[in-house]
């Protein structure tokens, strides 16, 4: 099993945000987690990635049978947990080549694979750029620095393709994207679908799910999963809004 979340409670600054999440994601499945603002969507993604300041107060998370919560952020990443950020962070002065090579080699090291030298890495990176239709100049620029919203999300997609994660968490990847950019980024994500890879698509709106079609949809409200269903659920949400579910949670 890729991911098993049981009765997960988490707090930020002493305030409880997640109030008992149960969620199971089998290998190869794509699950959407939808919810209104403030429902705990981003908190869930940060807790899974292991961000400092997000205190787990109860419950458990197992990732491929392993206790995920016992691992440091970078250890989770090296084991194949990838979080695509809602707001990718700028790192001035650090070129993409340098950053991505260090990341790829960190992951390779932990898998017991040989590290790539500069030439090998560049070859790989260029190939991925080409596949995703990302300009190679992005590799030379400083990480996310001065990138447009669309460029930042495409850069996240490039990193996914390079790091080949097993569990992909997309945190509101659709935010700030126009319809064309959304399509491009979604296509990059869809290319990565495989029986060995699972995805959690966190979103407020249904539209990204037109491109990344989920196997299951869960509605998160008030820090709990209040309803689960197939993709029809998203359409229902689109028609009637979150109000009914928020009511249930409260």
């Amino acid at each position, binding site marked *: 099993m890729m991911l098993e979340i049981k009765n997960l409670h988490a707090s930020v600054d002493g305030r409880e945000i997640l109030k008992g999440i149960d969620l199971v994601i089998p290998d190869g499945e794509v699950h959407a987690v939808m919810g209104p603002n403030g429902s705990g969507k981003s908190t869930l993604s940060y807790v899974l*990635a292991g*961000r*400092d300041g997000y205190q787990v107060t109860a419950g458990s998370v197992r990732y491929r049978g392993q206790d995920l919560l016992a691992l*440091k*952020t*970078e250890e989770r*990443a*090296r084991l194949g947990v*990838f*979080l695509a*950020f809602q707001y*990718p*962070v*700028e*790192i*001035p*002065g*650090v*070129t993409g080549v*340098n*950053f*991505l090579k*260090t*990341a790829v080699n*960190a*992951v390779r090291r*932990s898998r017991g694979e040989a590290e790539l030298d500069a030439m090998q890495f560049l070859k790989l990176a260029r190939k991925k750029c080409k596949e995703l239709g990302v300009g190679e100049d992005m590799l030379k620029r*400083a990480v996310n620095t001065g990138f447009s919203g669309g460029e930042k999300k495409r850069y996240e997609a490039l*990193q996914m393709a390079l*790091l080949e994660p097993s569990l992909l968490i997309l945190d509101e990847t659709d935010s700030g994207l126009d319809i064309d950019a959304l399509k491009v980024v979604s296509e990059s994500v869809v290319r990565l679908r495989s029986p060995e890879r699972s995805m959690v698509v966190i979103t407020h709106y249904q539209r990204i799910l037109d491109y990344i079609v989920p196997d299951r949809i869960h509605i998160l409200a008030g820090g709990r999963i209040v309803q689960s269903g197939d993709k029809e659920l998203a359409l229902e949400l689109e028609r009637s809004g979150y109000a009914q579910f928020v009511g249930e949670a409260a």
Partner: protein
Amino acid sequence: MSDDMDQVRTLADQKYKYGFVTDIESDVAPKGLNEDIIRFISAKKNEPEWMLEWRLKAYRLWLTQTEPDWARVHYPPIDYQDSYYYSAPKKKDGPKSLDEVDPKLLETYEKLGVPLHERAILAGVAVDAVFDSVSVATTFKGKLEEMGIIFCSMSEAVTKHPDLVRQYLGSVVPYSDNFFATLNCAAFTDGSFVYVPPGVRCPMELSTYFRINAEKTGQFERTLIIADKGSYVSYLEGCTAPMRDENQLHAAVVELVALDDAEIKYSTVQNWYPGDENGKGGIYNFVTKRGACRGRASRISWTQVETGSAITWKYPSCILQGDDSVGEFYSVAITNHYQQADTGTKMIHLGRNTRSRIVSKGISAGHADNTYRGLVKIMPKAQGARNHTQCDSLLIGDQCGAHTTPYIESRNPSARLEHEATTSKISEDQLFYARQRGLSEEEAVALIVNGFCREVLQQLPMEFAVEAQKLLAISLEGSVG
């Protein structure tokens, strides 16, 4: 070592009690500085009379000077009569083998990839026993001599090349320059001397490293480099590996002279003991470095990577006298824990169409304070002078400080001066982002810091640059998380 040192001290104190008699057979002068001690140093080095007179003149002036207090550094008052001003290299006072050396120091050498046989030298193990680089040094020296290049210790230069020394020593940093420089004039024990004859391009990087076991230069180092017309020389000072040293106060003076069309590149990596994590101990590095672009179209470039010392007080400067001369200053200064650095440069434009460029990168972590202090001065005759200053600060954590104090004085309306400054912080967001991609916190900080310093590191000779990159990472270990 302590037993030997104690013995020496007791002995020295006794001598002092009975009044000090100049004894050039002795290996150590008693504590404190006075005219007798200066005579002793001068006699030890077989110096000519003029050299001694110069030292004494400086000493007498020094007695009337006051210690500068304008820098943003804090330290308890120094008792200048409580230190030793001369002790010949003693083979006994260091550790006898690497087994006796602080394991932490060895660990750092390991990380830096310092070759095994060099570690002992750096750690202060009596060198003769472990490493004989004399042959290497001689080979280089022979090659340089063929080209007419003089590269020797300052003591040797004073006796063998007195005319050159007399002509140039103190011509860039006068003996009256400042409290620490004047003290250096009075009490310097050794340093490096370089002369490159007209039209000669020095074929190798000259490095103090070649002389590392030749003589211990001590706390008052004196360096003089002269590039004659149309010549070129690149000089490397220091070492990325931390050096063990007993002396707390270091007050070096470096003078560079570039004649017509000559170029001097001077690179420093300073990694003296910075004190412990609580700010205890560490070297006070109070240095005066100045270059004179005396000739037309001459060029002097300072590059420094300052990671060590408890306190750094240092402003490598250029006096742009010759028309069309160029001065450059590239600096990375890192302070961690309780380190303090007040560093920068002075670019004094005297000649026409003189140009200068300043790139300063200050990185502050822990409880450290980092100040850039710079002066760009355009004199009335410096028609068409130009300066560009780029001054960036990077903060790690929220207990440290970064300060920028640029002074600009222009007395010529045709001058063009630009100043850019930024302050940024390694944010928790950046670290989380990098760690989420599999980088450890240390890797992430190293990557960000190296990116921040790239412009400066590029100025270093290739091999030095690689070492410096590693050094930056090591200096910042434990600064986050």
